[in-house]
């Protein structure tokens, strides 16, 4: 019951800050409820698949996501995820906690970055991979876009997948970094495409966690349902109200969670 309530809150926080449920969930389970980090990660992966797939229908309605770019980069993220899940068994709990805290800090920092859309006009590789598409520009007209640094983006995605497999988070922040900052995909396209990729990436490592017995049903069930309901409420709130100040407060909360994770990892209390 506590887990259900806590997961609901985590889902709410995750969706309001745009960081995803797992980012709040894992530290909460580990720091507040004293759950072993492996269980926490297993349960979190499940909630990540649920929220990503559950919100996909809404993203489709917006119609900006690029399935070809998504699919191409999913090769990288799923390979990374398998590697990350493999690493998770070989990394000591303390190490995982410290890496988690650092990624958390970085995600908060990224969520406050401004986005400047510089539309890439042309790239021969992009033509070959059929990644060109259009998106509605600020003036409402369809604007043609292309992408650059495909190999750099691909490499960063392997890293994003590995973090997702190691930490049980969607690592949406790193995915958007790869698409938005490196490949220069328009921001709206990269956020919606990233949501699609998160579910597939998490599924790649969740299968491995399941077979290893890291997914405990009595923990996974309340977490999955709690986070799903929480993120749906969060999505409603986002549409209705201006949550800028709320978002700032939550980001501070997440900042302290990150520090707490690093500290506990450092002194070996997890």
């Amino acid at each position, binding site marked *: *019951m506590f887990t259900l309530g806590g997961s609901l809150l985590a889902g709410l926080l995750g969706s309001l800050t745009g960081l995803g449920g797992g980012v709040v969930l894992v530290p909460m389970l580990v720091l507040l409820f004293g759950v072993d980090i492996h269980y926490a990660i297993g349960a979190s992966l499940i909630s990540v698949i649920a929220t990503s797939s559950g919100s996909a229908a809404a993203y489709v309605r917006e119609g900006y996501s690029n399935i070809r770019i998504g*699919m191409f980069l999913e090769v990288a993220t799923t390979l990374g995820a398998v590697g990350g899940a493999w690493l998770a068994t070989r990394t000591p709990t303390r190490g995982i906690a410290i890496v988690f805290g650092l990624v958390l800090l970085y995600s908060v920092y990224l969520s406050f970055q401004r986005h400047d859309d510089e539309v890439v006009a042309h790239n021969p590789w992009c033509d070959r991979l059929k990644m060109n598409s259009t998106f509605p520009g600020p003036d409402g007209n369809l604007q043609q876009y292309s992408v650059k640094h495909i190999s750099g983006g691909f490499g960063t995605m392997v890293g994003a997948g590995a973090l997702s497999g190691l930490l049980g988070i969607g690592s949406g922040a790193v995915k958007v970094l790869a698409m938005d900052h490196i490949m220069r995909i328009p921001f709206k396209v990269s956020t919606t495409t990233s949501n699609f990729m998160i579910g597939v990436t998490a599924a790649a490592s969740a*299968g491995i966690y*399941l077979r290893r017995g890291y*997914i405990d049903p009595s923990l996974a069930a*309340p977490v999955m349902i709690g986070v799903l309901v929480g993120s749906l409420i969060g999505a409603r709130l986002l549409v209705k109200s201006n949550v800028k100040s709320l978002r700032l407060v939550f980001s501070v909360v997440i900042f302290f969670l990150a520090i707490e994770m690093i500290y506990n990892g450092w002194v070996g209390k997890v």
Partner: protein
Amino acid sequence: MPRLNDKQVETLIGQVLRYGVLLSSFVTAIGLVLYLARHATAIPNYHIFHSVNASLRSMHQLVPEAFHGNAMAIIQLGVLLLIATPVARVAFLVGSFALEHDRLYVVVSGLVLVILLGSIFFAT
């Protein structure tokens, strides 16, 4: 069969994902209610890591267990359905790229599908 455009394909996929999530959360919720009804007072200990019971990790044993009303097995079945949802999405895309005769992306999405299935069935 009429050719689907990207937008229609995406809408269909959105539906597949939504119903997958609905179905799996429904199964999981049933399992959770059963579990809470039976173990309402027990406080589980997650602090010490011990791997989950082997019968919950293999599919051959999971399904019959779930139909016998084992709450843990029902939840685990819900979890499996959930993991299957994005896999179904990728499989669906392989098919839709094939219909579009887009060979390059049949290969790309096929590769993702192979990685996914490999990690679920063969990785240890």
